[in-house]
């Protein structure tokens, strides 16, 4: 056995970010994952940039290709009765169903958990939404880009003298899949031990609030409202991004102890600052933070960001370059960890989707390219679901599969 989820069958009724990435977590670790969409109603990310050579095409999108690695593609028209019937067969076949439709959509198709378990009692099913399956806002349409607003993540990003800025993308969309993978794995393990299935209702709002739980408890227990602080931190100073040589180059430096601050003073060639009463203690550094940041910036400004990071880290001072999107592909650490494995895609060509943040010593992830629209229709319908050739041809003729 090579993959953790070898032999586990997953019906993946997902689109956009949160659902596909959850299914992908299972697929890259050995599960057989069938991603369901259709040519007329494709996963909306298929119509989103970037496209290879800028030419729009359902199979040319780099974002879809990185969110749906290692899956099989089934294009099924769920607007037809027979399409839904086939979807039910797939759900009956599956060990796990992953879906991120708006609450109620799966139920209306007869694909709700309570329907499926009549024929597949040990099913593990996860529904991922913005705000959850129940409650007054449950039916509200949305994406992670607005879920992060109610989750407090937007409020915290930016400078105290200005309004908040946008966290790029949508933080909960890309964190919820880790919670989803955790929940599904735990449910599968429970099923392995007890034979019982599980239904999991995941709300982006709820998982995101846990990420910032200490800040929420501060509001509840101390009645203190959280404020955005740019790059400063209530507990550590200095703590920020400092300008370096070149255009828009920045180095983060964070001293989490007095000892780290003293080392920074040595490296900057300013040992006298370490004993200067204006900076000797955390409290003093906080009181004089503007001046402190000016002093550090004066030192960093004419220096290379990378060289300075290495210099500081070797002296035990936490420092990290603000790497841009080109640099993460050249980062020697990410390269060593093989974070961006190379795959070859028939329309996109060679490209490098992301790996995962966890490495397994005995069961490494194996990342294969994402499917084309409907690429595995026959393999799924005849091979996995066992329909006859005649039935398959009829489904194609009736455009149930497309």
């Amino acid at each position, binding site marked *: 056995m090579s993959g953790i989820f070898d032999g586990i069958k997953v019906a993946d009724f997902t689109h956009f970010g949160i659902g596909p990435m959850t299914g992908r977590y299972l697929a890259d670790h050995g599960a057989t994952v069938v991603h369901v969409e259709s040519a007329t109603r494709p996963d909306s990310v298929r119509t989103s940039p970037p496209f290879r050579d800028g030419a729009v095409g359902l199979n040319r999108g780099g974002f879809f290709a*990185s969110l749906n690695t290692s899956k099989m593609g089934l294009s099924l028209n769920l607007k037809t009765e027979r399409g839904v019937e086939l979807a039910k067969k797939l759900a009956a076949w599956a060990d796990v169903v992953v879906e991120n439709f708006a609450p109620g959509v799966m139920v209306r198709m007869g694909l709700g958990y309570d329907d499926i378990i009549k024929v597949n009692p040990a099913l593990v099913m996860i529904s991922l939404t913005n705000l959850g399956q129940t409650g*007054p806002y449950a039916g509200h349409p949305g994406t992670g880009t607005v879920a992060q607003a109610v989750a407090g993540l937007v409020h915290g990003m930016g400078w105290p003298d200005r309004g908040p800025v946008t966290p790029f993308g949508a933080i909960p969309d890309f964190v919820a899949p*880790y*919670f989803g993978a955790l929940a599904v794995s*735990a449910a599968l393990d429970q099923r*392995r031990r007890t034979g019982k299935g599980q239904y999991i209702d995941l709300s982006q709002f709820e998982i995101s609030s846990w990420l910032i*739980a200490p800040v929420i408890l501060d509001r509840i*227990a101390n009645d203190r409202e959280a404020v955005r602080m740019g790059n*400063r931190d209530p507990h550590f100073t200095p703590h920020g991004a400092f300008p370096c040589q070149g255009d828009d180059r920045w180095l983060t430096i964070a001293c989490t102890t007095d000892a780290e601050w003293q080392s920074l003073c040595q490296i900057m060639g300013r040992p006298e600052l370490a004993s200067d009463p204006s900076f000797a203690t955390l409290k003093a550094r906080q009181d004089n933070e503007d001046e402190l940041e000016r002093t550090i910036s004066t030192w960093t400004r004419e220096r290379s960001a990378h060289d300075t990071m290495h210099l500081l880290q070797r002296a035990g001072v936490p420092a990290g370059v603000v790497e841009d999107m080109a640099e993460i592909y050249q980062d020697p650490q990410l390269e060593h960890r093989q974070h961006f494995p190379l795959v070859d895609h028939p329309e996109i060509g060679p490209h490098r989707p992301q790996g995962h943040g966890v490495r397994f*010593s005995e069961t490494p992830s194996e990342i294969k390219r994402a499917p084309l629209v409907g690429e595995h229709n026959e393999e799924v319908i005849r091979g996995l679901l066992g329909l006859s050739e005649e039935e398959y041809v009829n489904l194609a003729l009736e455009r149930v599969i497309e």
Partner: protein
Amino acid sequence: MLNGYRILDLSDDKGLFCGKLLADMGAEVVKVERPGGDPARMIGPFYQDDPHPGKSLFWFAFCQGKQGVTLNLEEQRGRDLLKNLAAKADAVIESFPIGYLDSIGVGYDALTEVNPTLVYTTVTPFGTTGPYKDYKGPDIVAMAMSGYMSLCGDTDRAPVRDSFPIAYPIAGTEAAAGTVMALFHRGRTGKGQRVDASAQQSSVSLSANAPAFQDINQRRLRRSGQFRGELLAAIPERQVWPCKDGFICFAIYGGATGARVNQALVDWMDSEGMADEFLRGIDWKALDMSTVTREWMEPVEDRLGAFFLTHTKNEMLQGALERRLILLPVYDMTDIINDPQLQSRGYWMDVEHPELGRSITYPGAFIQSRPTPVQPGKRAPMVGEHNREVYGGWLGLTVDEIDALKQQGVI
């Protein structure tokens, strides 16, 4: 769901959330700390701002539901005890500097010698291998090195991280997923393994499609303030908008969804006399976000922005709910704890803190599941609170033996 598993949590602030999640799902998680208390107990904020090891809200949040034992790893007898505990555990979580536990004889090799099927999880800034493995990586450094920070912030200032640190909760979640995946694999094959989580790597995915832009188009997306880079449109478009008493998040979409939402918003504006002929005349179905220009978008954004300024966050929320707009207000912590959606789902739970003479309301289960609910446990342990239960229950030590170990400074 994880009932019956025993997890040893040796981690510091970087890994605490991992064990917390496993405890929520039913595992017996024992936080092992040094005599006198774990350094993470001194991470703020503190209850009533009292910097006391029994009052850290950070510790409260991320050690809820765990048992707590003390153990002195500087002593050989402490290391022996750790091996005895590891022999009884299903998984160990640690986040020490790389090589530290090996150097004192209780690293992966030593613990798997006493427990060959152990799942051994590490949560570190950059992973346990590679050129940066020994580099320090507090939240802001992990966010910077993941690339995500380069995409956030105003263009005329430095890139920013979120002021509420999330890099280690994120890495801890992925580590928890990895731990359970490894337990599942162990259950099927009888084999344990190492689970090696990197905070830098866990946060790369936050950059959404920006890495793909770089990879296949060699286009380097950058931060653009309250605008969003090219997520679904060919141009940066406004995502964060000021309203009467704060901010909201909303973006103009194309396609069928966009046509419905944009028209519903214009109809709302029209009903309040704030949609002019220009706005009413737009054919939203024809809007193609892959070819839209800033010149087209600007006069639209000007009009929407003027409308939002006439309404409060709550009015915008209510209006969005009625009209199914993909729009939500920018909540602060007060808004979050007062939110009707979370309340109606029973999200909040009261956790008793007898030492403080009160209970504190916490966020509740991170998922709702059935038939097996996720149930966060009691308040985080006090220093050495469960020494007797764990050393007695796991290792069969008598009360006298435990007291003797305590007197000798081993626990």
